[in-house]
């Protein structure tokens, strides 16, 4: 692509909105790029719910009809992002970690288009913002339920990729379970995919055959719950979305990602001219992470304990990672009463003491 032609085209297309940025905009075209299908029932489904809420909020002032699903992370995503920028999108929400390079490359070529990258950390140019949710806070709640509910003292975790976001979830869930059940052990299986129902079902089956009776998942489909439903006494949790169709069991609770407030806030800021680059990382307190209904399969005392953990985190009284904590190899991570800072969390690449197995290297 001839850089100059591209820039010229982009400039021509964007000339009008660019001129009116300071005073806000009359109409915003918001575009979304998804890693899975909108019907995945989990991660992408929730982002699409956020898109629909955005459209409903602003009516005619926001065109939020443009989205593309199942875009692979890599060369294809860069093309899709470029075509979106060329087609006149004012703000593009890229909703998967793996779009990071593509987002930053394309953003550099279209300075007047705003890019919002979910779960990323690179903001190479002024028009790139990142947003994320503290899913590990939700894991502390589901981990508590898991630790109290397991009969075999074996809980399982289906990881997607061994990146910090997953490691945070694994550690938080394990620590919470261990707190209420010192005998608990955790098995971890990696699916190496965000959305692959067949692989996720295989992973769940492998865990259940090892005697695991509580399955936590960091992957986006309902396949692990469908697998859990086949064995009496095995429970799991909705991931990203409520996954209510598996209520009351095996889905006994869920971690729901609620992106709507963020999407409405950011597009609203673009409309009224207050938009600024930023990095957002909100959790239970900010409403981005919600705990779905805890069903009656869970005894009242367990439910009360889980809600206590949830409310304490929301109130800022409890941090899922509070010292004294050691790393898996026995070295000290956090001293008594200490909590990690965000940079520490964002780069987490070790298991805490007590988890067996290795992070794939």
């Amino acid at each position, binding site marked *: *692509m*001839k*850089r100059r*032609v*591209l820039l010229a*085209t982009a400039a021509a*297309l964007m000339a009008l909105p660019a001129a009116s940025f300071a005073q806000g905009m009359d109409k915003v075209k918001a*575009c979304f790029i998804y890693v899975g*299908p*909108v019907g995945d029932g989990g991660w992408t489904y929730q982002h699409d719910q956020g898109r629909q809420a955005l459209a409903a909020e602003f009516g005619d002032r926001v065109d939020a*009809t*443009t*989205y*593309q*699903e*199942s875009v*692979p*992370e*890599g*060369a*294809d995503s860069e*093309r*899709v992002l*470029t*075509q*979106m920028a*060329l*087609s006149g999108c004012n703000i593009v929400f890229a909703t998967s*970690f*793996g779009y990071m*390079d593509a987002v930053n490359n394309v953003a550099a070529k279209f300075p007047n288009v705003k890019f919002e990258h979910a779960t990323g*950390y690179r903001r190479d140019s002024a028009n790139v913002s990142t947003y994320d949710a503290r899913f590990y806070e939700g894991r502390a709640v589901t981990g508590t339920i898991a630790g109290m509910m397991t009969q075999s003292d074996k809980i399982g975790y289906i990881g997607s*990729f*061994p*990146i*910090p976001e997953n490691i945070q979830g694994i550690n938080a869930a394990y620590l919470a379970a261990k707190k209420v059940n010192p005998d608990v052990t955790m098995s971890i299986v990696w699916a*190496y995919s965000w959305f692959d129902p067949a692989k996720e079902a295989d992973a769940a089956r492998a865990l259940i055959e090892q005697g695991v009776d509580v399955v936590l998942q960091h992957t986006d489909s309902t396949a692990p719950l469908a697998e859990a439903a086949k064995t009496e006494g095995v429970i799991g949790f909705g991931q990203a979305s409520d996954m209510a169709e598996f209520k009351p069991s095996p889905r006994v609770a869920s971690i729901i990602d609620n992106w709507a407030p963020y999407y409405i806030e950011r597009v609203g800021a673009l409309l009224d001219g207050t938009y600024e680059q930023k990095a957002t990382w909100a959790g239970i307190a900010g409403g981005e992470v919600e705990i779905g209904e805890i069903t009656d399969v869970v005894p009242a005392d367990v439910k009360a304990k889980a809600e206590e953990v949830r409310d304490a985190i929301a109130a800022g009284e409890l941090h899922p990672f509070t010292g004294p904590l050691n790393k898996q190899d026995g070295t000290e991570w956090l001293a008594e009463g200490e909590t990690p800072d965000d940079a520490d969390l964002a*780069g*987490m*690449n070790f298991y805490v003491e007590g988890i067996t197995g290795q992070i*794939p*290297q």
Partner: protein
Amino acid sequence: MVRLEKRANPSRLWSVATPVLAVVLTMIAGGILFAMLGKDPVAAIRTIFWDPLFNPQFAAYSRPQLLVKAGPLILIAIGLALGFRAGVWNIGAEGQYVVGALVGAATGLALYPMDSRLIFPLMVVAGGLGGLLWAMIPALLRTMFRTNEILVSLLLVYVAQSLLASMALGALRNPQGGGFPGSRNLSQWASSANPELVAGTGMHWGVVAAFISVIGAYVLLQRHMLGFSIRLAGQAPRAARFAGVSPTRLVIVCFGISGALAGLAGLFEVTGPAGQISLDFAQGYGFTAIIVAFLGRLNPVGILLAGLLMALTYIGGELAQFMLGLPAAAIQAFQGMLLFFLLAVDILTNYRIRWTKREAA
């Protein structure tokens, strides 16, 4: 009464006309599919086939992207077609593509951060060799133990994908990547980069290699003894044996060429458009190339055109998804129809339709 009568010789007219007819039938059936989804079928077909080439908003960007997308498809399909003509079924080009990229990237990364113009050529050689050696596994198993090369080559794709995951997370992972999977970016390191050769054309070394392979395969098939052996073995295996064509040698040569070309395609992709070894590096070029090979009638020039057409459905399909809100699955079904109709109308090449009057008994 309609009757099918086998032709003495395949019809030359129909062998050219069937791909065109298949495209037309795909457009009609696809249009019906899109209409059933509630979209304007004419607009959808126009967005897929016309907009990437001629829409003033996109064409300057998407036309070069056609070459980027078609390059690896053509390169792989040319190699496959030689084998298919000889009755040697290499279904595992996807695996050879991945291994070629891995070996080539590993060669380059071993020399990082040395600054030398020799590194890229060395990586090209390593990539080709990697694909070739991976293809030798099914070839040697077939010639030495008479295993089925379709099964072995296909199953080795899954082995290659696991190898890719392990390399992206382990040996080839970027030590400065903050714990995230994926290698260093090869397209941003001058010694290993495979950049656009002429700005604005999309032409990189992989596209050049694809064009050379088209010419090479054409000359080979028309003018060279090996090409004659390949054609003879496919059309009349017994006659080929009497003519002194060694089936063992032919299997090895066909797998060697197709493996090396697939490996090269992988290397050019990882150093150019994809940029890095990542978990999502394998995007199915090796499988799509099988469609391209047949759509091009296993003829080098045909494959060139078929590769470009296939690339057009990808790029146009992406446009149709976010411009018109067509689901990703509908686009995939549309691409699948192409092969379906091609195989269906292929019967006209080898058979003729006879309208006969029912004769009185």
